[in-house]
């Protein structure tokens, strides 16, 4: 964070800021820290670290839950994802295209719209807390609830959405969940409705961290509202913006429940996402080896995107 530079901290302050106590102040037995860590590390080891190692190992084997032999196949599972004549090639890339389409369409909306909402709320007025709570409310509901709800609202015949469109004189027979591009509009729209309050709250906290003096100084310099937004608000929000962009990309790339419940992958498998295909391949079709290879490939793709993201934000800072 771009903290304003201050005078050198005094010695006592420095000691307090330091996260690790100096050796002289250690006031516990040697085993104590490990005992405090034990319960967490037990769960973390079994369900956090072990699955990562196991995932790599699985991806190098032909792993069928039902077969006694699980032969080592080297990088064959990975090669299958990239060779056009393999069993999984077509479905895999169709799911990658689905996830990429969803991510590219949803992330800009989920970065920009919540910022507008946060700016709207970033002032003290009666009812502010109330409106913030209303905008955030859909986010506390699970994907099962919002999936069932929107599958109903988007129903072509009985749905509320087509009914409303009809009332204002627009076509009222759009097949929202059974044909593209409508299915994409639905999945993106529902996700924006569901999660934009979450990003708005994060932005709001970031906005409140920008010192009021900066705005006062800009006003005295005769800056317009737009100037202040560009030269004070946006630079002040940079760390928060990076966080929002990164976490939103990751969340969108992991989309599963919306397409599972609302479009059921339709039409065909066009809206079946990568995560959906991975669990189907791995758990329903007993092909854990290839599914693990897909998981790792997805993770690597996301690492590349995240690193690029950090680079772009740093580049802008220079």
């Amino acid at each position, binding site marked *: 964070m771009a903290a304003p530079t201050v005078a050198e901290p005094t010695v006592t302050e420095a000691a307090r800021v330091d*996260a*690790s*106590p100096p050796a002289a*102040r250690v006031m*516990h037995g*040697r085993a*104590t*820290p490990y005992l*405090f*860590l034990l*319960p*967490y590390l037990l*769960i*973390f080891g*079994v*369900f*956090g*670290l072990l*699955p990562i190692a*196991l*995932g790599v190992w*699985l991806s190098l084997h032909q792993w069928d839950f039902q077969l006694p032999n699980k032969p080592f196949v080297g990088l064959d599972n990975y090669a299958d994802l990239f060779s056009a004549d393999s069993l999984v090639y077509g479905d895999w890339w169709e799911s990658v295209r689905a996830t990429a389409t969803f991510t590219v369409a949803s992330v800009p909306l989920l970065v920009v719209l919540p910022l507008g*909402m946060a700016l*709207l709320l970033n002032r003290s007025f*009666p009812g502010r807390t109330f*409106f913030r*709570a209303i*905008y*955030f*409310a859909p986010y*506390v*509901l*699970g*994907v*099962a*609830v919002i999936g*069932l*709800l929107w599958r*109903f*609202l988007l129903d072509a*015949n*009985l749905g*509320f959405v087509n*009914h409303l469109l009809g009332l204002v004189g627009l076509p009222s027979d759009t097949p929202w969940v059974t044909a593209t591009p409508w299915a994409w509009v639905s999945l993106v729209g529902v996700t924006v409705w569901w999660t934009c*309050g979450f990003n708005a709250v994060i932005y709001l*906290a970031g906005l409140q961290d920008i010192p009021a003096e900066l705005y006062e100084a800009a006003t005295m310099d005769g800056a317009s509202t737009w100037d202040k937004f560009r030269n004070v608000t946006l630079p002040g929000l940079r760390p928060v913006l990076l*966080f929002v962009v*990164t976490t939103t990309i990751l969340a969108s*790339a*992991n989309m*599963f*429940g919306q397409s599972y*419940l609302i479009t059921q992958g339709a039409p065909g498998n066009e809206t079946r996402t990568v995560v959906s295909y991975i*669990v189907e391949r*791995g*758990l329903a079709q007993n092909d854990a080896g290839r599914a*693990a290879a897909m*998981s790792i490939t997805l*993770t690597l793709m*996301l690492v590349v995107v995240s690193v690029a993201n950090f680079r772009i934000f740093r580049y802008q800072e220079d």
Partner: protein
Amino acid sequence: MRNARSQIPRYLVLVVLAAVFVVPLVWMVLTSVKSYSAAQQSPPSWLPDPVSTYGYDRLFQPGSQNPVLLWFVNSMAAATLHAALVLVTASTAAYALARMRFAGRRLVFAMIVATLFVPPATLIIPNFLVADTLDWLDTLAVVVVPSAASAFGVFFLRQFFLTLPRELEEAAILDGANQWQVFLRVVLPLSKPALATLTVLSFLSNWNDFLWPIYVLFSADRLTLPAGLGLLQGVYIADYPVIMAGAVLASVPALVLFVLAQRYVIEGVSRSGLKG
């Protein structure tokens, strides 16, 4: 207020936006109290006339193949136990990382940071294998324990513990307390808001979890509510009052908790961005 009239456009935008978020939820509740035939009307009527218990009657039908009430109880048990487990494991680990000095501290911290970059959905296949090996599939434990390894709780509490004034802990030590007593009697009471935040967020995330339960729970009487709701859609297809009644049942605890603990939820979400 500076000038009431100049505020009118702002309130107009705020109210329209609020309607976008609220109307779908109101529609869900209204549909859940419609009769079957009223819900089949096209164009749909806004208000249920007459108000009908049809949806809830069918949802809770005794002897049904879909024991919805049991799913509700399972979800309550799972979310409560999960939140308690996160609270205990994350607070002790965070305290050690915030205040103690020991070999391997950096390594532990780095490992926890590293797992933040692994998309959780990609761990599903290996985690399924681990759960299978432990014979945990189709049990309560499988929806309570694995997700408790999340790094968020440890980060969040460690950050909070670092802001506490160290003097209080030192005074307690001088008075003869050991680390465990300091943690229980000094640190935890001072951390009530942060602990409340973590408890509420953990409860909600478990209450709402969908992807994991639908693959690791199989028996009708073991399902959690979200996993069961996914089935209802296939069973009742266009019988919307029943499906919406199910959605209402899953929403009410989450919304009530949010209203009661709004401050803590918002606080937790706000901080996740600032520390990122």
